[in-house]
């Protein structure tokens, strides 16, 4: 036997780290597309957020790669489109659409000196902003719905989970946007549009800086709100599950609250991932600009990992005793036999 066997089928993790990353990246990418699209529509701030959109498309791309990599049979991943009903198939379509529109949207923010022929068709850009926001949100919600439809997994099988994932995804997206806001290629692009007038350029620079400051402020405030919302939803999620009727869900929630995941949950998630960023946002400065968004992103990833690894199946009476007694997989008698001479 080459691999160590997972013999405890109650606790066996069929979805592991690539899925956690995928859920995180999907949420993050979708969230960025959604946020960037909305902000562009409302504030016309696309030029500040363009790099974020590219990042989002990359996130979704990497996420999809991880998803394929995680398949038992990666070579035949195209089979995913065979079914009409499966939620995974919907997810795959949404991913592609979101990625596609995001990418097209980004094409309008390429360096102006390239003078690409589609630059003038701004209506396409604006349409893409709307569509990428829409499909981005769908991807965000989908990552939560995917897990919450699993009747077998009581800890997932709750409508609070998509809410939590949505809040968390938007929170990480906002944080990422805040980190990436105003970086390439926005300045050059704007300045090129304005022309060679030094005065106008200087003024535009100021406006741009001001706009960026405003946008950062908006993003930070939004993230503060989202972080607070996430704290509330997360606590609601864990505590109500703890109080729920399902024994398995209860046991997992207990694991979060006082069991082996408690340290990660209280210190990792609640303190470092949510409370401290909130305070840093509140304090402003470098902490708000760089540390808080990074912490929020880390917390988002941690949350996906913790959720994905809380996939305990509901058990039938006696299953726990049964699997506890089975060999763990690394026993000597499972490592092959050699001839006696």
């Amino acid at each position: 036997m080459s691999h160590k066997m997972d013999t405890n089928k109650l606790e066996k993790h069929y979805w592991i780290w690539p899925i956690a990353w995928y859920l995180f990246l999907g949420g993050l990418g979708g969230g960025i597309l959604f946020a960037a699209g909305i902000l562009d529509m409302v504030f016309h701030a696309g030029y500040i957020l363009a790099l974020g959109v590219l990042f989002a498309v990359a996130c979704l791309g990497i996420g999809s790669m991880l998803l394929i990599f995680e398949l038992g049979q990666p070579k035949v991943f195209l089979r995913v489109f065979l079914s009409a009903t499966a939620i995974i198939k919907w997810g795959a379509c949404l991913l592609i659409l979101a990625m596609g529109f995001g990418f097209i949207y980004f094409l309008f923010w390429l360096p102006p000196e390239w003078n690409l022929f589609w630059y003038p068709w701004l209506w396409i850009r604006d349409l893409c902003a709307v569509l990428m926001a829409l499909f981005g949100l769908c991807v965000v919600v989908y990552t939560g719905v995917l897990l919450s439809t699993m009747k077998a997994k009581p800890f997932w099988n709750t409508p609070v989970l998509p809410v939590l994932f949505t809040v968390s995804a938007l929170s990480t997206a906002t944080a990422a946007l805040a980190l990436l806001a105003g970086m390439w290629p926005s300045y050059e692009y704007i300045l090129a549009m304005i022309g060679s007038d030094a005065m106008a350029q200087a003024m535009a620079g100021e406006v741009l800086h001001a706009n960026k400051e405003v946008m950062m402020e908006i993003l930070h405030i939004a993230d503060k709100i989202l972080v607070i919302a996430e704290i509330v939803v997360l606590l609601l999620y864990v505590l109500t599950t703890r109080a729920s009727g399902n024994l398995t869900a209860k046991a997992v929630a207990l694991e979060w609250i006082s069991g082996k995941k408690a340290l990660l949950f209280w210190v990792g998630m609640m303190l470092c991932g949510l409370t401290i960023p909130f305070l840093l946002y509140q304090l402003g400065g470098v902490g708000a600009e760089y540390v808080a968004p990074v912490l929020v992103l880390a917390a988002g990833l941690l949350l996906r990992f913790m959720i994905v690894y809380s996939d305990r199946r509901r058990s039938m009476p006696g299953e726990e005793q049964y699997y506890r007694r089975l060999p763990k997989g690394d026993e000597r008698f499972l490592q092959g036999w050699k001839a006696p001479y």
Partner: protein
Amino acid sequence: MSETVDIHAPDVEVKKSCCYFCHQNCGVLAYVKDGKVIKIEGDPTHPTNQGGLCCRGNIALLHLDHPARINHPLKRTGAKGENKWEKIPWDVAIAEIAEKLNQIKAESGAEAVATAGGTLRTDDWSRRRFMNMFGSPNGFHNALLCWIPTFMMETAVGGWSPFETDLATSRCVILWGFNPGSSAMPGMRGYSDLRKAGLKIIVVDPRYSETAAHADLWLPLRPGSDTALALAMIWVIIYEGHHDKEFVENWCTGFEELEDHIFEYNPEWAAEQTWLDPELIRQAARMYAQNTPGNIQWGCTADQLGKTAGAGMHARAILRALTGNLDRPGGDLMPGPSMYYVTDEELEGNDWLPEEQKAKQIGSDKFKLTSWPGYQRIADVSREVWGKAPTAEWMCEAHGPSVFKAILTGDPYQIRAMIISATNPVNSYGDAKMVLEALKQLEFLVVCEYWMTPAALYADYVMPIAGALERPIVHNNYGVTDSLITSQRAIQPLYERHTDYNFWRDLALATGQDPDQWPWETLEEAFYYVIYSFNSSGYQFSSYDEFVEKYRMFYPPLHYYKYGNNGFATPSRKVELKSSILEELGYPSLPTWIGPAENEVDDPEVAAEYPLVLTTGGGFMPYHHSEQFNIESVRFLKSDPYFTINPKKAAELGIKEGDWCWIETRRGRIRQRANVEPSVDTRVIYCQRGWWYPERQEDTGAEPFGCLESNVNVLTSVDDEHCDPIGGSWANRGLLCKVYKVSYWDETDTSYSIPGSASEPGVSVPPSEQKLAYEPIPYDPKPTFEVPEGLTWDKDTKLAWDIERGLAYDPNSGWLYHPETLIYYDLVTKYAYDPETETLIDEATGQRYSMETREPIGEGEAVKTTAAEAVAAEELAAKEAAAAEAAAEAVIITPTDIERGEQS
């Protein structure tokens, strides 16, 4: 899945094979393609399993070609136990072994060669045939733990062991220390069915077993106290008057003595011994006695009680008789030996073994019922009544532990060589440390095996043996029943594997035994000889395989109340509640209580240090004894050893579920994991037996394959005083122990021995100085008739003798007779009676005398006799003729017998 192999393809042959992983021998259909078995499944038409197969049955294919199987004869090249081998051809190995055995025989006598077996899987009759011709009486199995003492006891008391239970019409069955729920799957199905139909099931088991879960009444007694329970049940039945008075009056002897003897064993007395509520004992006795016909199913508990075993088996035999359940519809049937086919006993050739060799059988001076002294007595009676004797292999063997002791001590003489087949004695015989030491010290060891076992590791030669699917099998329950079920081999043995029969035959020929006595080259030929006689009536087949394919089984007509013809096969032809055979052998003739090997009452000091009561004998799925630990699919289900402890006791000792713990007795300690469960009393520890770790293939040090680590036989004792003096079995149950958690620094202690007396393996007191649990009772029978003056009473033959002339006295006729010529002599004149002329002859002078007057008469003179005398003489002659005829008839199968069988 079977998509890859199509068992319905035209080139796939179906073979009627059978499972070979326990003695049930469930039917298996083997699908064979191009000489390879591609699939197996349970045979739906087989009477035993009806298509079912248990964990073990299903792994036949995994067993057949397991990478760790021994496929070629191995010769040791390194030091003993060094695990260095050389592959040699089968014939070479056989020749070398034979040479060595002959050398030992020439130097030390044939008795210096012993053989050890395990379960019923070694073509036992051929092994016995070899040993008899070779001249050694020292073959043995683990027979003493496995029903054989019970068989012999019940045969001594009632003439045959009621082996078959007529459950279909039974109303109550006692499963006494028998857990078909984990050891006899097909049987368990039957119990479930019958219980639904109203059969009452009483289970006697200290543990809440799979079977106890399906019982109407469960008696969770103190392990080892079964004898007390049986005695108290007799008490209830007799003193509450539930016994079958008519049967007892007509067909039992010794009831009055039993009534007096049993008086002290009331349920209140038994309650102390068994920890059971006296009312529960009464309830059980009433349920059993009032719901007749009923049965006591065979099981091995009574054999594993150690020194209290004999009385327990005797008491159970009495229970069957008191309730009149013997050989009646719905009761305990006594099939007797088969009259229809050649029995195992007839194949064994016990007559070849000279009397002086029989006398050398190790252990036969102490444990007489299951060795030559007791067997001979029982076989003689059995031949008189049934016409055939019980199988000698199993029923009449050397005392295994004494043989191992003889290896170490040379007492009573040195055992120099041993052939071990189908057993891993370190795991299956008592006092594992002593056995392991004996194997290490043995001069010459041959092991016939599937696997490298601790025993095989110390062998000089390891011989590869054919397993399931590779051998034909005749299932006839040790030859103690009259039916048989046959199975064929699916394929010829792979590699250089051979059947046990071929091993013994080849060895026999190589040691110079007469080839005419081994006329069958293959097992099929031998089995054809066994069943050939069916051919003369109704059955038509020209080979064994044909019989298997066409008929598969043979069930003779069922006869109830067979004792109505010739009586029971005991000396008195009645059920001897007070057994004369036991009395003759020097044992209590009525079941007499003696406490278990170690108990709180007799050994309070031991109990103070070892407060818990241990039972080690229970079989558990999916293993059969110490087998299948190396089949991954099976091992996966139970990968670690677990002992059971009551949650209250566990909490008291700080033991949690799954903890590794030491279980320690005065003899050593082992470790198993804790199964904390309220299935046993707070004072009881139940250990799993058989554990070793074959996967530790590199672990070939002093305790190879971890063979002592979790092995319950490290805890058992085979000291003579702990053995049953009657049957010789040692105790697996009712031992005193203590339990404590394995601590951190214990991990480095690999000796699994406790400091002090038990740290050194071996024998501290020479066997000849070891005392028995109780002294033999000198047998001194008084004459039952008035001994005429001048004759001498002899207690062994129970006859009065005219020693001078070697004549015995017949108290019925008042004449003397010569035991061999059967000529009658006048008591006073010592003249011989001549039935032809009805005169008396003085043999010294040839002078004839008149019967009436004792006057001398001349030649040809008519003799007058009284009418009464003439009739008496005629009757005598007729009786003699009938006896001779019966003896001759016994071995002849008449066609009408078989026709009767067909019709019914």
